[in-house]
């Protein structure tokens, strides 16, 4: 459960900070061009070591008001559709996509449900999964369920040392299996949601160290991104998609 606490710790780096430190010229692009602009996803264009990249981050917000608007970082269908639109546009220009994910999951609200939360996630898996451009996801807190997978279905997924990625939150898991959300500690133990477990299952490519200083954290991320992008950008579209197919087919 320690790792769960660490992943949810307020002190860990935020999406806002990652954007500021790693992508100082970040230019936000709003909206899904269908029905709205979900503030739980902040996305746009930026320069990364001389090349343009598309950056998509989940966002929990700071003030209480912001947090309520962003549903504490849980995207609505329009958020997933915004991400999908941006990835497809990035593919048009063969521009790499970097996603930063920290979400308990997709927002379980009535309007989210009626506006097709399931359909939005499904279409992300389908369309991001086929986008012909390198796509890397970095989990930097909680990676909860299909709502996280919808932003982590590209070529590589990396996790920060203090993060988790699981089929459901430990609370939800305990409540489904044992009808008792209070058994979350027990759930976290059997769920195998630590970066080390996930590396063993090959669900992720690697773990990024997380020193206390946030600039150092960003330097670590920067190193990984540079190295991995170079590798992925040397592949042809056909090779990239074949590699991606195999990445998920093995599970």
């Amino acid at each position, binding site marked *: 459960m320690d790792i769960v606490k660490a992943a949810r710790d307020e002190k860990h780096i935020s999406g806002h900070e990652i954007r500021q430190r790693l992508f100082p010229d970040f230019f936000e692009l709003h909206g899904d061009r269908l029905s709205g602009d979900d503030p739980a996803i902040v996305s746009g264009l930026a320069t990364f070591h001389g090349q343009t990249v598309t950056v998509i981050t989940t966002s929990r917000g700071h003030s209480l008001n912001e947090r309520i608007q962003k549903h504490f970082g849980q995207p609505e269908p329009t958020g997933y559709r915004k991400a999908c639109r941006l990835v497809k546009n990035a593919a048009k220009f063969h521009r790499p996509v970097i996603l930063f994910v920290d979400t308990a999951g997709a927002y379980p609200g009535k309007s989210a449900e009626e506006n097709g939360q399931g359909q939005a996630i499904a279409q992300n*898996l389908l369309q991001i999964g086929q986008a012909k451009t390198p796509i890397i996801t970095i989990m930097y807190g909680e990676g909860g369920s299909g709502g996280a997978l919808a932003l982590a279905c590209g070529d590589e997924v990396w996790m920060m040392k203090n993060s988790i990625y699981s089929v459901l939150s430990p609370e939800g898991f305990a409540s489904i299996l044992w009808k008792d959300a209070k058994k979350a500690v027990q759930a976290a133990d059997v769920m195998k949601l630590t970066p080390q477990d996930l590396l063993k299952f090959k669900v992720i490519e690697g773990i990024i160290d997380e020193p206390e200083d946030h600039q150092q954290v960003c330097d670590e991320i920067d190193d990984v991104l540079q190295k991995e992008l170079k590798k992925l950008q040397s592949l042809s579209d056909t090779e990239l998609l074949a590699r991606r197919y195999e990445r998920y087919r093995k599970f």
Partner: protein
Amino acid sequence: MVKLFQHKNTLTEKHVKANKSADDRVPDGLIKKCPKCGHEIFANQLDQYATCPECDYGFRISAKKRSKWLLDDFEEWDSEISPSDPLHFPNYDQKIAKAKKASGLNEAVMTGLATIQGQQFALGIMDPTFIMGSLGQMTGEKLSRLFEKATEKKLPVVLFTASGGARMQEGILSLMQMAKVTNAVAKHSQAGLLYIVVLTDPTTGGVTASFANEGDIILAEPHAMVGFAGRRVIEQTIHEKLAADMQDAENVLKHGFIDHIVKRQDEKKTLAWLLQFGGENND
């Protein structure tokens, strides 16, 4: 406006005292109550389709039972594939044994080569009697193979979904099946082949958020529960009670996510008609 009508009805079920001794006089399983409209039916009056005569709701039935009235011919694929236990999850093996006995299957989906009125297609039927049709690693494996084989043989795919979502006992590897099957669906689609989904009760969670929502045509059975998040979770999140039919297929259709609601009795002829329009074999 008369205020009287704005009051909540005070005569709730809670206030009606159940007559337990009356219940005792009726043998178990003699009467089935429709979970949607409450209509009571003598169990022995349910025909092979197992639908409610009042509202057409289709009761949850096993894949094998469904295949009996749906198909003219069927050759099963990968029937030997059985759940893995990647997390060595406590008591999971007992649950699997029980599910196998209940469904007559080794996994939560039955797949194979099917024929309806002379038309061949690749078919998957998820089984709600097998751990509520949950999506495990090997469920995903059978589904991926279904789409891969259909792509290779240039066949359309029909998939009946029924699922409580990801299979918790298999953790993150269960989640990965959503992406794995989706990629196989994409290949099938890129080959120009037709994929028809039939949503049955219940289709929820990770299945709703992946291959159930990736069909060219998406049909649903009357009043089938179709949703992503669980009703209880939504109610706790928004602190509001949801309408009983919020996740009924009819409401999902109204919001634009389902093509057509089809009664079980009409499924065979509807599929036969739709299958004419997909797959090279059917050109």
